[in-house]
């Protein structure tokens, strides 16, 4: 079957002139020259500087907050505590966006009133003439805490008598899947294997910490210029402040990375309160230490897999239990758990399936969105389990995977039929081949190869009924404008829209201006989250550009006396396809069409396919628009005396549907190779009774430039995706298999499995020694 036929709208055999080419991104020059303006770069007259008092303990009652000395300090203009937030002290932390969702309780106090539930919970806000003064004021605040018994483990928190952090039972969310006949499935198995895998907190570690400036302008509009993935937060800010939605103007300039950490509101509402209180612009750039406490890190998961498999390698049943530590507030934990539930079986078809998933509250840091969004944790466990099954039954692990890959037309975990291409096999085969020969072991070093495949959704949960809008217009001189409030979080979101528009209107990328990130002068595009920005805003832009093209070509068809489909646009000209000598510059075309009153611009809306949710008893239903598939392979060495792991080669191979900008795709693959390496080997937030012990870059260990292996990107294009030109989302997908491939490579090298990430030298050495002892 020609897999591109799966989606009727997909484009096969189209000759693309700009899309997929290695065009320099149009945000590159300003960034390379250091001219790009980020949220923290703005200065305004009379601007004040903010500081936030974060709780230094995880579970305590607040008996009193004495701010008298802080308020009395000269140069301090505002000190706010919960006592000042009389009208409303709650901010929505649910999935943001146009249509909302809503789970049981996803509000969070803006400032802690009588109780702190996690280390870092904000207690007071300060605005002063300088950061130094604000810090001095902060140091003068006396919080009278009464420590209370907390709960720091998601299993403990579900036990009777546990301290209650959330709701009345600490259960933030639960899901189940009941599919096929689980007993029969295990009966059919020749082998049954059970393993439990755990993973840790991971910090987004974006280069730009939370930063924003807020001010009330001459029209009494509250303006916030913030480093956010979501300009639609203006609604949550307005709701929290009790002012109309149309009085809050939230803009996002260029953003220095988000990875999900700037998905839920961070500092915006704090600055809004201070700006309203002082009537002056207020700025805050979080220090790195406070940034660690100002957004939610990746959820730690405990995942138990019980798998039935025949001796031929066919998986007959999977029983999976997922538990995530939500931390002290719900934030996006329910959705992240849902992603993990859907992704529990990786890219495999499992007809007899039983999944129980729970997210429980604790007094740990509230975890939240982070690239991979639960799917990655679930996939990492599943791919470790597949490797262990292969070992158990004595089969090559890729061969085992081949026997179980889901295929187009198959139902997935929730019974959704897979429509787009599944090129896991091609990707895994090419990635493994790219690793080359495994070096022979030396005196101290053993080598290993690892592979992992994945299935990761792109686009939002379908019952969110996601939409995106974009405006495209041609100017009288033949240049083009795109207006789309997509936030550019560094992945080339803005540039991609220029490339798409340029392809359709025949205008070079550098003659296209994209206005982005400002949702009050541009149509709202929705969030830059869920690997949806290119899919959704790209699609809306494609629709708008095609509408402009159609308008103009209809007019030009009359002029050239041909039908519109006999015309094309390229290189700033309109021409007759089978007689290119008959041509006109786009500039002249626009003039001509304008004189005839033809619309030269268009505002389009793109609607993702909706669905109505899951059956709560069986977990069956349609959750996501579509999925991306691929593989990552890694070659590692392990020092058997110390347990140190070195990643030598890291290869990502992904079916991206259609690359819009190949270099941008490679950038995502390379970045994910390192982020996944950090998760596999060294990154871990260490909490003692809820208190973060390594909240700085000297102790929280992301890979440095000296840890970078040889990275190779293999980009395959099935053109079977739902995005523009058949593209699929890639931001999260390319990250999903990386850590699993490294963990599998380490297991291959040392001959035994470590079930608990990250694979620190100490854990690796212990595993080597235990393995030696057991022989």
């Amino acid at each position, binding site marked *: 079957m020609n897999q591109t036929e799966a989606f009727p709208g997909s484009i096969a055999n189209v000759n693309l002139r700009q899309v997929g080419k290695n065009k320099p991104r149009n945000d590159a020059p300003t960034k390379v020259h250091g001219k790009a303006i980020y949220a923290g770069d703005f200065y305004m007259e009379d601007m004040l500087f903010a500081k936030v008092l974060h709780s230094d303990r995880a579970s305590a009652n607040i008996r009193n907050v004495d701010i008298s000395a802080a308020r009395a300090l000269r140069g301090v203009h505002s000190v706010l505590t919960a006592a000042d937030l009389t009208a409303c002290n709650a901010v929505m932390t649910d999935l943001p966006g146009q249509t909302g969702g809503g789970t049981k309780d996803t509000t969070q106090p803006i400032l802690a009133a009588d109780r702190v539930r996690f280390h870092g919970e904000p207690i007071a806000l300060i605005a002063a003439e300088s950061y130094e003064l604000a*810090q001095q004021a902060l140091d003068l605040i006396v919080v009278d805490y009464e420590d209370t018994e907390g709960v720091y483990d998601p299993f403990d928190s579900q036990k009777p008598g546990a301290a209650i952090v959330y709701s009345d039972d600490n259960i933030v969310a639960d899901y189940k899947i009941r599919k096929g006949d689980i007993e029969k499935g295990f009966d059919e198995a020749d082998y049954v294997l059970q393993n439990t895998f755990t993973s840790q907190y991971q910090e987004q570690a974006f280069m730009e910490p939370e930063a924003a400036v807020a001010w009330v302008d001459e029209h009494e509009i509250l303006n916030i210029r913030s480093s956010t993935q979501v300009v639609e937060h203006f609604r949550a800010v307005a709701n929290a402040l009790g002012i109309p939605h149309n009085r809050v103007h939230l803009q996002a300039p260029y953003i220095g990375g988000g990875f999900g950490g700037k998905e839920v509101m961070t500092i915006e509402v704090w600055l809004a309160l201070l700006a309203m209180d002082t009537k002056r612009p207020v700025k805050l750039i979080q220090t790195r230490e406070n940034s660690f406490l100002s957004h939610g890190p990746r959820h730690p998961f405990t995942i138990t897999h019980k798998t039935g498999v025949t001796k031929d390698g066919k998986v007959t049943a999977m029983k999976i239990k997922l538990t995530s530590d939500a931390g002290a507030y719900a934030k996006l934990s329910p959705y992240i758990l849902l992603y993990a539930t859907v992704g529990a079986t990786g890219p495999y078809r499992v007809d007899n399936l039983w999944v129980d998933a729970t997210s429980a509250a604790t007094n740990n840091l509230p975890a939240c969105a982070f690239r991979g969004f639960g799917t990655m944790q679930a996939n990492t466990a599943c791919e470790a389990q597949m490797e262990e099954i292969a070992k158990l039954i004595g089969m090559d692990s890729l061969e085992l995977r081949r026997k179980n890959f889901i295929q187009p037309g198959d139902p997935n975990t929730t019974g959704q039929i897979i429509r787009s291409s599944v090129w896991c096999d091609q990707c895994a085969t090419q990635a493994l081949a790219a690793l080359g020969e495994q070096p022979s072991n030396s005196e101290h070093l053993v080598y290993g190869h690892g592979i992992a495949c994945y299935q990761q959704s792109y686009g939002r949960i379908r019952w969110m009924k996601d939409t995106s809008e974009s405006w495209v217009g041609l100017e009288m001189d033949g240049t083009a404008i795109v207006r789309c409030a997509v936030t550019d979080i560094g992945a080339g979101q803005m540039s991609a829209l220029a490339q798409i528009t340029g392809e359709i209107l025949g205008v070079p990328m550098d003659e296209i201006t994209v206005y982005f990130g400002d949702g009050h002068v541009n149509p709202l595009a929705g969030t830059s989250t869920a690997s949806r920005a290119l899919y959704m805003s790209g699609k809306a832009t494609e629709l708008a550009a095609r509408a402009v093209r159609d308008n103009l070509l209809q007019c030009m068809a009359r002029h050239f006396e041909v039908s519109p489909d006999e015309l094309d646009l390229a290189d700033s000209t309109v021409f007759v396809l089978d007689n290119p000598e008959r041509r006109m510059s786009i500039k002249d075309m626009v003039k001509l069409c304008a004189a005839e009153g033809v619309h030269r611009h268009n505002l389009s809306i793109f609607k993702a396919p909706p669905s109505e949710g899951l059956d709560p008893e069986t977990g069956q239903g349609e959750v996501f628009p579509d999925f991306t598939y691929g593989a990552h392979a890694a070659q590692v060495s392990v020092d058997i*005396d*110390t347990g140190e792991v070195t990643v030598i080669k890291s290869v990502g191979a992904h079916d991206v549907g259609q690359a819009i900008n190949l270099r941008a795709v490679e950038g995502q693959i390379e970045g994910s190779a390192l982020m996944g390496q950090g998760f596999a080997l*060294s990154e871990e937030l260490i909490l003692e009774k809820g208190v973060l012990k390594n909240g700085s870059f*000297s102790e929280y260990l992301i890979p*440095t*430039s*000296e840890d970078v292996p040889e990275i190779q990107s293999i980009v395959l294009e099935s053109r079977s995706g739902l995005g523009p030109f058949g593209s699929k989302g890639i931001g999260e997908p390319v990250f999903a298999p990386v850590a699993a491939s490294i963990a599998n490579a380490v297991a291959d090298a040392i001959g035994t499995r470590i079930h608990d990430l990250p694979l620190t*030298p100490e854990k690796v050495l212990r595993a080597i020694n235990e393995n030696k002892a057991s022989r």
Partner: protein
Amino acid sequence: MLPPFDLSQPQSLADALQALAGKGDTRPLAGATNLVPDLRGKRETCRDFVSLDGVNELRYIKRDGDRVTLGARTTMADILDDSGIRTDAPALYAAAEIFAGRMVRTAATIGGNVCCGSPSADTVPALLTVDAEVTLSSVSGQRTVALDEFYIDYKKSVLRSDELLTSVSWNVPPQNSANLFYKLARRKGDAITVTGVAVMIAAEDGVCTRARIALGSVAPTVFRASAAEDLLAGKALDEAIIEQAARAAADQCAPIDDIRASADYRLQTAFSLTRRLLTQAWKQVS
């Protein structure tokens, strides 16, 4: 954020020593690559610093016969850029090579690394294996102290508050010698050492004539494993004796558990890395 602090910026060594002599709790500041994180992390209480940034006379690498002297403000990058350190102190060169990350190496100084007193200071084990000495200067004069006698306890040394460490010197190792360093850490760049080991083995006629073993991050201070050294001196080394020496070195360790590693892991790796480096060194010289 950084707390407010006082900073004087003398332009000569004499002025720097004067600034240090004046007050009680005043500390010199060179590359500040440790100091800034410590200030931000509220681990450093001093708020009065004397910057050595303008004291260029402390930035040099000098050779006088077999004697090599580094001015205290010599940076890790200076050590790597010098054509001779690789042979004059191979372990020091190796330590500088994997010292923190590239940015830190251009700022961090040898004097700062020695004076910070951290058991994880990477140049110290290397310097101990070449019997380095440090010169301590003050307005009232100067004295030379063996680095081996410099540290008293965790982050404590014989350096007085009015003194400045002005140079580090040592004699070039003998002809037939091997001088190695291994840094075990949780990542390759910008990492704090979990276990650091440096060894020096010199041999003549198949006999070990000098053995030096120094270990970092496994006790309150970097230290020389003297019992292990004594086991090796004057002997032809083999697997058994190397194993015995490595065991003796590990026995002298007093590591702690912290967020980077357990004491037990540090002990195990102190043993295995000492054994590994001794084996490699002996192979090179025999």
